[in-house]
């Protein structure tokens, strides 16, 4: 099918982008999620505001011990290592397993997060890495913790008229341990259960369980999970309502594998 008609705007500044969005335009990024929704006519916006030409939209800059990643940075750029150090290694390993390379060359980290598909990879991983989302609206920049940026299925903490400009993530020491596991029926398909765990020496380990048809579940102190993966995974998953037995089983497996990965 073909999309229904819309008009196309290309804002040259973030202020113009916000004006367009406030007037009802739909932001367009890599269109790797929006494109299919348009083609299937699940989305029928009057206007698309193409963010791809905004200044500083894509790219990475390190300030102190934080890396700022422009919303328009593609999965492929992250896969190819634009983020330095241990954090970059971790993000590259996640990016490589999002969709397929020809989707990753256009799909963006910001689009992925703003889209807030519960099964999406950055939706699951960024809350574990910590840091903030940088929203931009009529009143300028606003910082929101990534741990509760995604609030529901396709729902985020962005206010009406706000766009996502960047994410800011703390850099990691080489000693940081990381485990990540997802269950996909075919490579590149959306996950049916994802878990990840970040263990930085001297800090509380943090885990996330995601892709369970709701917002990601952030486990702020995962010490118990590290101590007793099997028992604790069972307890955590029992607290997720409405999962069929097989989804429960793979969710538990995801948590156990994430622990194993972080220990390896």
């Amino acid at each position, binding site marked *: *099918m*073909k*999309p*229904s*008609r*819309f*008009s*196309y705007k*290309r804002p040259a500044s973030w202020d113009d982008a916000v004006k367009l969005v406030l007037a009802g335009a739909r932001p*367009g990024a890599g*269109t*790797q999620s929006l*494109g*299919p929704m*348009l*083609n*299937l006519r699940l989305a029928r916006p009057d206007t*698309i505001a*193409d963010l*791809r030409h905004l200044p500083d939209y894509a790219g990475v800059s390190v300030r102190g011990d934080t890396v700022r990643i422009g919303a328009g940075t593609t999965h*492929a750029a992250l896969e190819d290592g634009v983020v330095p150090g241990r954090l970059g290694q971790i993000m590259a390993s996640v990016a490589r397993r999002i*969709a*397929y*390379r*020809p*989707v990753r*060359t*256009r799909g963006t980290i910001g689009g992925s997060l703003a889209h807030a598909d519960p099964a999406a990879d950055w939706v699951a991983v960024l809350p574990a890495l910590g840091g903030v989302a940088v929203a931009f609206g009529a009143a300028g920049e606003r910082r929101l913790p990534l741990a509760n940026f995604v609030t529901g299925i396709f729902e985020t903490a962005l206010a009406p008229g706000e766009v996502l400009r960047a994410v800011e993530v703390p850099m990691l020491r080489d000693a940081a341990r990381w485990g990540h596991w997802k269950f996909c029926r*075919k*490579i*590149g398909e959306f996950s049916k259960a994802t878990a990840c765990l970040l263990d930085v020496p001297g800090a509380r380990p943090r885990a996330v369980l995601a892709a369970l048809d709701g917002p990601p579940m952030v486990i702020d102190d995962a010490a118990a999970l590290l101590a007793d993966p099997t028992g604790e995974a069972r307890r955590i998953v029992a607290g997720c309502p409405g999962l069929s037995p097989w989804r429960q089983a793979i969710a538990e497996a995801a948590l156990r594998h994430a622990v194993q990965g972080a220990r390896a």
Partner: protein
Amino acid sequence: MSRIDITLTVNGEPRELKVEPRDQLADVLRGPLMLTGTHVGCEHGVCGACTIEIDGAPARSCIAHAGSCDGATIRTIEGFGDDEIMRALREAFTREHALQCGYCTPGMLVVGRDVVRRLPDADEARVREEMSGNLCRCTGYRGIVRAIVSVIVARRHARREGACR
């Protein structure tokens, strides 16, 4: 919903076009530009048949609006001429029976060429992983994977020989 003026460089030639904002690149290539080697299957990014190069990187032309590609350099399956890797892949696809109806082939070749270039040390498992976004309803994939692996191996040998000399 006015039409927009765009300029694309398609297979080396500058083209000025008037497109509707909703036009996907695939439709513009196949329609006004009559480059029907780009095939359209699923129209939601899953099957890979429409894969082309935008500014040197493989991309799905079914979910990239022509309007947002204004100024870009596009290469379709018609535009690889005697590119060295593409020539080797064409020969390998023929030799290994890597196509039957040919519907998936343009996308397979564009992605295959990217794999050969980007991952010169890929083994069979990695090639399968990288090609998993291109569906083929005919061949069962074995010939396709074998063809791509054979080009990677041949280039690796050539590299080694070059280094020994």
